């Protein structure tokens, strides 16, 4: 069941909760059980930064089942401020601002909907910050 899988990972999807190695300080998202840098198993939950920049992106016209109504959709690899790279959709962004290096921030959106009667699954997506908006947020 899609909803159960989502429920188990909801803090990951809702708040970008990953882990941080208590020995070397390296952050990971999605969470890992052993630090990939120093091998330590002493990891604690950590909320990832909500801002970053686009490393690369693509536009999907043919989507996976469940995402048809959102097509065409932009998918990007985003490098967060702590260096962690995550994959996510980029929304509410005019084509001319969607470019490598563009500053983005995470927003809370519907990821997919399980039909008319099933559950609505939420999670993070990204929005490219306009110059004015960046000034407003400091």
């Amino acid at each position, binding site marked *: 069941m899609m909803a159960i899988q989502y429920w188990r990972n*909801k*803090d990951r999807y*809702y*708040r970008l909760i990953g882990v941080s190695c208590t020995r070397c300080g390296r952050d990971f998202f999605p969470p890992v059980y052993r630090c990939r840098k120093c091998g330590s198993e002493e990891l604690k939950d950590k*909320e990832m930064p909500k801002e970053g920049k686009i490393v690369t992106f693509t536009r999907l016209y043919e989507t996976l089942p469940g995402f*048809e*109504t*959102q097509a065409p959709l932009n998918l990007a690899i985003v490098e967060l401020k702590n260096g962690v790279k995550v994959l996510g959709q980029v*929304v*509410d962004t*005019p084509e001319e601002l969607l470019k490598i290096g563009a500053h983005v921030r995470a*927003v*809370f*959106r*519907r*990821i997919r909907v399980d039909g008319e009667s099933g559950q*609505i699954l*939420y999670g993070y*997506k990204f*929005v490219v910050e*306009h110059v*004015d*908006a960046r000034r*407003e*947020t*400091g």
Partner: protein
Amino acid sequence: MKSREKVAIHGYGAYIPYYRLPTTEIARVWKGGGSGPNVEKAVAAIDEDTVTMAVEAARYAVRMAGIERLGAIFVGTESKPYAVKPTSTIVAQALGQHFTLAADLEFACKAATEAMQIVTGLVGSGMIDAGLAIGVDTAQGRPGDDLEYTAASGGAAYVIGRKDGNQIATIECSTSFVSDTGDFWRRAHERYPRHLSRFTGEPAYFYHIENAVKALLEETGLRPSDFKYAVFHQPNPRFPVEVAVRLGFNTDQVKCGLLNPLIGNTYAGSSPLGLAAVLDEASPGERILLASFGSGAGSDAFYITVSEGIERKRGINPTVKSMLERCAKIDYSTYAKFRGKLIK
């Protein structure tokens, strides 16, 4: 109504979706031309709903407040994504808040101000230190109906806590006035609301707001000229200006918080968003009158005084003005796709 302990706003956050539908588009499709009373309306994207907008506004409000623990989270809305399953618990989870009283409130367009009153009561009585009141809607209008011109999406959130020197504004007093009035309603399982056309004005909007505000002025001994700003519920561009003049306020007092011409009626988000626009501009010591209206019907009126903290916290969040400017126009067909009016 006054709380025993002084209660204040510590942070606020607004959220206006990115997309705008010019009302000329609605008129083009359904009337062959013309426009609605407002220039444009804010439209939630296909992946937005009341939950997502509530979370965005709440995150801003919590960031500005700098308060870690919220003892209550109330979401005022008439457009819950679920008939049974709270919006407020999803917001709580997204904020990482679990030891909190969470509930959804519904009173048409005034559900947010009753959330503010409840949180004020909980804080003022000492039951909680701080709580969150959110007003947000993805308002529905039947295609072709007069409501479709104005029914819009957006909202605002307020972190309310004890008055401790870090507040941005103090909630001095509030009043409420209600009656059984059938101006606007939506029956169970119905997708769109119905309304009694002109009946929504005199016996509904004006009657309730005038009574609530007059009671507030009487209780506080203040006159309309004592307020720098006045924010009224905004179902269209005309009503808030007209009720202001009737009550003795002038149009300058209303101007700053009047967003309807640019974004339409965001229902439970309407007067809270107007208040957010005013707080973006207000200076310490200035008085604000806030009066909501909810069909069914009722009005809550607030007397709010701006505090010194507003200057320290300015610039933490995007302003309402920046959200108005960051937008993209869409046509009717895109709007129909986004809001589920187009069935695939």
